[in-house]
């Protein structure tokens, strides 16, 4: 067993170091393994890790007994999930009336949560696919966890369209399956149907992408596993990975292809989710800016959530040397950019409303800022426009505790963005007679809580069962900015 590990490590290190065309920053200098890097570069991974050390440290959380902190967090998350399950069960048994919706506001917490979680689910694939294609090699420390986050967020998101139905037991009617009801078919003109396809596709591709990336690490876990059951399970899921060059080559090819496949999905999913609103006739929804605005918002919120999770993970799983302050900084910079996009979109919406001279449009935006839901609007603006501005300062970006707080605020802000779009637009549309307020019931709040419970339950289980950091990929960047120093020292 030890042999196998050693062999595997050797194979792997060979594979990593020997990958002939592995993209890297230093590659433009010609061949060589980072030995000609500029001296100002800093390594991605701190602590001068050896390859074996990386394997040991990343696999440690899987192999040691769960800590008290993990147990406590899990208990909280599980309780929240249980509350959510109870709320959803009660709602399905009793009726949608247990939510605070009304004849005017037909969607509120349900679809807000849905869009929020779908948005969260964006960062993972963005990090693993788009940053991969753009050769942002710092992504390696966070891509696994971010992808896991994507999967769990999409699971949370996917629940809401089902439970928000009046008759969720008929949810399968949304699928165009052959049936005995004559020519009865789904409505391909409905954006909700596009959602079904967009989200299921996105979920499947993300899951495959994540799983494929996991295979080498599952093999590592398999080889290190002490109990036969664990070994057996990891063996099944590692698909007989043997670490050979051929395996690695094929793996790399498929990974690249999947990255290419996943990239348009990152853009398409939220574009299609935004169509739910953009194709409607409701002022405040009927807006052509929505697709880019939603994608930017999704990336923005996704990175905020990745930050939240990574800051917790690096602390509790002792991964400070893998997920370094520089990673956090890089993510902060993306947040500044996407936050800027979002702020621009907010401004553009107001400009368009004024410039269009459409009375309904103008009213709905003034109403957001000055109407009965202005508190939600200004919470959104505060969290999404003002908070990211603090990140221009390097002092803030490198202050992990502060970044953690800011990431939470951005999450709050992005939740409110969706709430503002959905609820304020619906609550005051064309006929003043039908205008209505909205306030959530305990069941709705419990369901939102439950979705967080589900998300963190899944994430905590993930931390215990799978390598949180992509071992193989991290090893690939281990030499980054270190080779030169090592070389100099030799």
């Amino acid at each position, binding site marked *: 067993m030890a042999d196998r590990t050693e062999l595997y490590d050797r194979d792997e290190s060979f594979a990593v170091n020997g990958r002939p065309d592995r993209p890297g920053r230093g590659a433009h200098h010609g061949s060589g393994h980072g030995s000609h890097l500029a001296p100002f570069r800093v390594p991605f991974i701190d602590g001068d890790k050896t390859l074996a050390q990386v394997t040991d440290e990343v696999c440690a959380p899987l192999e040691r007994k769960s800590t008290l902190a993990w147990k406590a967090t899990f208990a909280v998350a599980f309780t929240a999930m249980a509350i959510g399950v109870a709320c959803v069960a009660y709602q399905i048994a009793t009726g949608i009336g247990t939510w605070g919706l009304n004849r005017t506001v037909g969607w509120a917490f349900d679809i807000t949560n849905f869009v929020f979680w779908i948005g969260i689910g964006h960062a993972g694939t963005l990090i693993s696919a788009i940053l991969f294609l753009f050769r942002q090699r710092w992504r390696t420390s966070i891509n696994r966890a971010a992808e896991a986050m994507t999967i769990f967020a999409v699971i949370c998101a996917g629940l809401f369209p089902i439970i928000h139905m009046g008759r969720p037991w008929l949810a399968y009617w949304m699928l165009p399956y052959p049936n005995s009801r004559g020519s009865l078919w789904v409505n391909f003109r409905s954006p909700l149907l596009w959602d079904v396809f967009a989200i299921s596709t996105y979920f499947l591709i993300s899951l495959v992408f994540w799983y494929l990336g996991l295979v080498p690490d599952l093999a590592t876990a398999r080889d290190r596993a002490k109990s036969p059951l664990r070994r057996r399970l990891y063996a099944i899921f590692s698909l007989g990975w043997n670490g050979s060059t051929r395996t690695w080559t094929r793996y790399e090819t498929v990974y690249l292809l999947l990255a290419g496949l996943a990239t348009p999905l990152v853009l398409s999913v939220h574009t299609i989710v935004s169509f739910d609103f953009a194709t409607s006739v409701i002022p405040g929804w009927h807006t052509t800016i929505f697709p880019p605005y939603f994608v930017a918002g999704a990336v923005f919120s996704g990175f905020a959530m990745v930050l939240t999770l990574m800051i917790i993970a690096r602390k509790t799983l002792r991964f400070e040397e893998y997920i370094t302050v520089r990673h956090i900084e890089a993510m902060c910079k993306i947040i500044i950019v996407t936050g800027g996009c979002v702020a621009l979109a907010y401004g553009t919406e107001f400009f368009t409303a004024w410039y269009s001279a459409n009375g309904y449009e103008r009213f709905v935006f003034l109403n957001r800022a000055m109407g009965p839901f202005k508190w939600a609007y200004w919470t959104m603006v505060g969290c999404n426009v003002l908070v990211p501005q603090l990140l221009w300062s390097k002092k803030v970006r490198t202050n992990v505790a502060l970044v953690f707080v800011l990431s939470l605020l951005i999450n709050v802000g992005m939740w409110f963005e969706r709430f503002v779009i959905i609820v304020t637009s619906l609550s005051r549309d*064309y006929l003043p007679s039908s205008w209505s307020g909205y306030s959530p019931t305990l069941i709705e709040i419990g369901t939102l809580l439950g979705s967080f419970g589900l998300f963190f339950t899944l994430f905590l289980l993930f931390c215990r069962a799978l390598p949180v950091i992509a071992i193989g990929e991290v090893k690939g960047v281990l030499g980054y900015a270190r080779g030169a120093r090592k070389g100099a020292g030799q």
Partner: protein
Amino acid sequence: MHLNAVDPNAGRAEAAAGAGEHAVSRRSFLRAAGFAFAGAAVAGCDRALTHRIVPTLDQPEGLTPGRALHYASTCGGCTAGCGIVAKTRDGRPIKLEGNRDHPVSRGGLCAVGQAMVLSLYDSQRLDHPTAGRERSSWADVDRTITQKLARIREERGAVRILSCSITSPTTRAVIERFLGSFADGRLVEVDALSASAILDAHLRTHGVRALPRYHFERAELIVSFDADFLGTWISPVEFTAGWRAGRVLDNHPHRMSTVVQVESRLSLTGAKADERIPVRPDEIAGLVGGLAGLVGARAGRRIVTGAPEADATLGDLADRLWRARGRALVVSGTNDAGVQAAINAVNEALGAYGTTLDIEEPSYQRRGDDSEVADLVGQMRAGRIAALLVHGCNPVYELPDALGFAEALEKVPLSVGFADRLDETTSLTSYDCPDHHPLESWDDAEPVAGVLTVTQPTVRPLRGTRALRESLTAWTGAGERRTDRDILRAHWRDHLFPRQSAHPTFDGFWDETVRQGFAVLAAERALRAFDSSREIPSPAARVGSGMALVLYPTVAMHAGQHAHSPWLHELPDPITKVVWDNYASLAPVTARSRGIEQGDIVKVTVGERRIELPAHIQPGQHPEVVAIPLGYGRMGTDRFAGIGPEWLQGRPTVERGQTVGTRAAGLAVLRDGAVQLPDVEVEVAKTRRRVNLACTQDHHQIEEPKEIGGERRPVVQELGFAAFEAGERPESHEEELRSLWPEDHPMRGHHWGMVVDLSACTGCSACVIGCQAENNVPVVGKDEVARHREMHWMRIDRYYADEAGRIETLMQPLMCQHCENAPCETVCPVLATVHSSEGLNQQVYNRCVGTRYCANNCPFKTRRFNWFDYRHEDRMENMVLNPEVTIRTRGVMEKCSMCVQRIQEAKHEARRLGTKITDGEVETACQESCPSRAIAFGDLNDPDSEVSRLRRDPRNYRALEEIEVRPSVSYLALVRPGSRGGRHG
């Protein structure tokens, strides 16, 4: 009706078959015996077939299962006597419609009338007579009451019948006969909504105590002092039809009458009035006096003495009245005989008698005499009344507390009620002998002189009740027993048949009358001249200070007679849009100055009496007025505690042991022989408590909030009459929005469409209840309405527009607009809402999964979602459900279908007969009930149809035309009289 699954003959047949083969083995014998035994056993414990079933072989003539039968009858909802047609299906009435040929109501039926079909199936109606609140039997009560009455006859005791106005000639005759058997028997009539003063005034001016018949259709200028004639005053359906006839804008020449409403609260009539003058209630006497003086001056004679000085507004009004003499009408709802006498003098001076109102062929819709009631209570208190029979009214609830009816009732040894349940009065009387519901009894009525209507039963009595006439006949003399129908027919044969000449035989006359629901007979026209020899003193202006109290009936509750109808409780008040409660209405400025907000509980102190109820802020109301609706706080309304869905955060509609709303009738006083508003200063004090008044509308202005734009939304378009005559038209986007796309729905056959005339619509809400009855719309309770989850498919949006400081009220009926480019249809993922080839937007309930996307995307917000499974547990009440329309389950969307079941029925019938559907053959429920005929429905592809003709009307516009959803429902712009020009919208 179903047969049992096990046929008792099966065994025998088998045995016979075996016998035929001459091979009855032991086994086959035992098997056959077993079958026969089992069959016999099953037949023995069968619970079905105990009553005779009617196999189709013996199908009654004219009765086809599944086909509706219509019976003409008379509405018993109030004393106005509107004609109805009861639609029955499989022997049970499910819908009431107006009788188009009826000379009084002319086809309309108000919300209360529509809701009468529900009260028929009220499972809380008594099933038996009661004695001392305990269950009794008819034989027992008959025996004891007859004995007691016999003793009273011997002792020459005083017997009184206290009743609401009795318009039925037969009942009057029966009562006369009954009372005639006593030495001292009298009928005292009382109206909960008293018009006693009008009758008294006519006694003074015309020498006859009668209510004139008002002909609003003949009036060009109507000045009303607090008479809500379109809403609740005397005969609103009749008056609405009359008022409507005075406004013709779709046919040339145009006709446009003007209504000037002088009132203290905002009534339905005030909301529709062309000019409105808010005043204190106690100012009215002075204003009427002033007007009488001015009209007299123009007539060149003094018609009242001591008329006060009048201001310019009144002068202008007098000028206009004088110019319109012969075509003018002045009415007043004030129950003050002095004021009414002055009104009579004005009408006389204007030549209104004989033109716009008629005292020679009077109305009998109100006959009550308040002073007689006061005398009666005095006699009761003095112990001089031996027996009191109370019919059709609820004096303990309805009369002013100051009269002390309840205490006086205790002094009456024998008291009998006829109410359908133990109410405030019958729970205090010695007996209650429940009368039938009007839909299950024979009756007749003469609401106005010469119009005799018949009420025929549409169903056998559902409860163990008995007609009043049968009870009285049984108690008269030798206990003779005659059926109600015989009593009625006998009276008609003897007294009414001779008054006509069209029919040679009584049976022919009777059958024809019953078939069409009424007969027009020659009235005994008596010449009643205005007695100008008597001086009429100008009513004295007694304007008090501080706040003044106004008590008023609502469109749904009237004076409380309908407080057991959940439909009417959930009907949004046409003005306030509040349901399931009454309130103290205060003007916005008054509320602001006292720091009172909507829903704050206020303490209203009137002299020594005090009630607490929530505050409602009412624009348009006079600032010194607190107005309280009557009809709430009825005993037993805590039955509605559980009417809505019960869930974690759900709140009951009414707390157990409480009542829906608060009784206010007790605050009235008896003054000058009539029940009037108290003339004391009223105190309104805020308490620390507040409740959530369930109101279907949150935003009441047609304009956006001032701080956010403040622009007027163009959904209700308005034109001044002068501007309209000058060629001004509602705003249209038809031209600029020509689509590049081919027609999505060609609609080559029919294209159903609707046109709603906003000039005609008064907002009376009859259509809302009509729709509810037709389409099985559930009642959801107060909490759900407060959460904005009312289920009505049809609603009336009420907006206030600020016109130079005056409040103008706009009413817009809204149902699904059946858009040609329906936004709801594209977004449904499962195609549960689709367009029919006939232009209907259809909702497929069993395909709906309930995403609510359609409702979100509906610009008119007419879609209704089934948030819960609404209650359908009362099996008796379920009999009101229309079997043509599905009951929707939880989790599906529903909305107006344009009564597709009626369209289908007409299409099937046309196909069966091989004909085409003619225009007007299909009428939607809302259209049918409308007293002002504001709704037209028909085929837009037929260029000659009424709806196509109205579509071409220059006032036609479609709501939200600018977003190009192309509704199949369009509106005719609201045209206001006067020179006030300019377009709004």
